[in-house]
């Protein structure tokens, strides 16, 4: 069976005044129906750029490489240029939930009107039907008084409720793929737990594919089936969630896990990954992580080993330089 979404050899570059920046390099990912792919990494690792490429939402100075493919439902999204085609993916087959729901709703338009508007664009229905679909969706995501909220503005809702409304809006067009970009980062833990459970229920119910972007490994452990760990535009490790979190091979994945405060183990020291993430303008050659790597693999130090994912266990892929690092220490 073919995948719902398949990204093959994707490079994303931005032309800026300072030169051409490589934001994403040689990424290959796939998502099946009903599956959650988690993407983790620090800020600047290219998580959001990857997700936006799927909807072609990156700004005008973006260039993609010729041989890249983003196959969604048997069509190559990267070849879409007409408005008509783009409309099919933006909000139609693919929906996106953002981190800050206050910034994603138009402040001066009622929530209901915004929900109806996008339904009218994507579905062949009239206003009345769109309204009832929207209200049902608001109810489905657990908003009490859905009729009342339908006629309110975004600022009248609390943070958790806004995020629910955002999810309702994203889901009302019944997308096949949902891109969730840090959807719980701005929320309190108790509300985060509510929203995570809601997203999980909805995935089960509608059998959609999801790409869940977050920097929180705890959230990944709770929602994802597969994980891709990104660093400076490259995937350094990917595989089933259990494998990645319990049996990490790449020094970067290990570093992320060690930097995380664990409430069950208060005696463990917090160990940051040394150094800073380099500027994408001077992206290291060879292994991108080598400037911060503890260098258990001496050959990786001078950047002569190219980035290449190798399958170490069934479905568990690790960058070849990272494998050696992991073995030595």
């Amino acid at each position, binding site marked *: 069976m073919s995948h719902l979404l398949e990204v093959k050899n994707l490079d994303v570059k931005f032309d800026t005044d300072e030169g051409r920046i490589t934001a994403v390099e040689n990424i290959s990912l796939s998502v099946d129906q009903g599956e959650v792919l988690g993407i983790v990494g*620090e*800020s600047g690792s290219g998580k959001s750029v990857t997700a936006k490429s799927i909807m072609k939402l990156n700004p005008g100075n973006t260039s993609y490489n010729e041989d890249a493919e983003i196959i969604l439902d048997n069509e190559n999204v990267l070849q879409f240029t007409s408005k008509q085609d783009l409309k099919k993916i933006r909000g139609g087959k693919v929906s996106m939930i953002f981190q800050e729901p206050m910034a994603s709703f138009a402040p001066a338009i009622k929530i209901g009107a915004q929900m109806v508007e996008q339904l009218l664009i994507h579905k062949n229905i009239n206003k009345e039907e769109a309204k009832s679909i929207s209200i049902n969706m608001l109810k489905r995501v657990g908003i009490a008084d859905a009729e009342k909220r339908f006629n309110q503005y975004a600022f009248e809702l*609390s*943070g*958790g*409720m806004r995020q629910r409304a955002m999810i309702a809006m994203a889901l009302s067009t019944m997308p096949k793929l949902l891109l969730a970009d840090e959807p719980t980062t701005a929320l*309190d*833990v*108790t*509300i*985060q*737990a*509510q929203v*995570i*459970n809601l997203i999980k229920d909805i995935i089960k119910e509608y059998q959609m594919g999801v790409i869940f972007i977050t*920097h*929180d*490994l*705890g*959230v990944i*452990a*709770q929602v*994802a089936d597969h994980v891709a760990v990104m660093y400076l535009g490259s995937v350094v490790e990917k595989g089933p*969630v*259990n494998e990645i*979190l*319990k049996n990490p091979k790449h020094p970067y994945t290990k*570093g*992320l*896990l060690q*930097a*995380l*405060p*664990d*409430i069950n183990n*208060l005696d463990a020291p*917090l*160990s*940051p*990954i040394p150094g*800073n*993430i380099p500027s994408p303008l001077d992206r290291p050659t060879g292994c991108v992580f080598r400037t911060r790597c503890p260098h258990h693999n001496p050959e990786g130090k001078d950047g002569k080993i190219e980035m290449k994912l190798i399958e170490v266990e069934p479905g568990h892929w690790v960058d070849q330089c990272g494998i050696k690092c992991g073995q030595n220490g």
Partner: protein
Amino acid sequence: MGDNLISVNNVSVNFDYQENFISKKQKIHAVNNINIKIKKGSFFGLVGESGSGKTTLGRAILGANKISSGNVIFHDDERDYDLTDMNKQDLKEYRKKAQLIFQDPYAALSPRMTVRDIIAEPLEVMRITNSRQETDERVRDIAAKCRLNIEHLRRFPHAFSGGQRQRISIARALVSNPKFIVADESVAALDVSIQADILNLLKQLQTELNLTYLFISHDLSVVAHVCDVVAVMYLGHIVEMGPSRELFKNPKHSYTKALLSSIPSIDPEKRSEAIELKGEIPSALNPPPGCVFRTRCPNPGVDCKGGEIKMGLIEVEPGHWVDQCCAL
């Protein structure tokens, strides 16, 4: 009061609120009847959801919010400062000794000042140093302690990453040689690896410079790692307080339990163990009478449902205080 640095006694902070100019004036009870003692050299944690009053309490202790009733005493070596009864001169002195580190290092630093000027500004405003040379010396000294390079001082904040900016904010807060630091969500905006780095730096500076922290955060695993004593706030009240290990190992209040269970576990096999709290934190305009948590409590008792049990902490173990509604 030998080993306490700060005593907060029955402090409440109310704000006036008027929906529009003809409607009745109301009071928002942001912080209610708080009693805490912060020991010298301790790392005191304050946790709770947004809207629980953590920041208001922190600001009240710094004298940045008006205290409506109760008082806050700062026990300095030679004398005590009473925050509710301070003249301008005292307030100036107090400001040198108590400082704040903000959440967002992108918003806290002026983009038009060099790092050197940012760090030096408190010294100049408070007239702590007398010559430019002396100022420069202090700036360089504190910058080195916060692991900033000397050449960084000539640059502007935009050239720095989030973690470096937070180190600049810390240097700025520490340059006046304060004894007490309020760190308000100081690591919330940072990536995990940088967060670990900043937390280690705060800990290291604490021993080096003999600091006392009030650490405000919504992240329980961070608080559990760095703090000695933790107070959990909900809707303006402290519902549980105790030594952090004891509190996290043996939480008594149902709110603390729910918060702890809501932390997403890093173990993919342990899913959905969260005690799900229904709804959201009620408005501070009309908090529920009696136990403020009872509208969301997963296992309310018979008495607290009627709101008959008043809020009040009782000591269940030495140093471990729990609101009486849940303790009973």
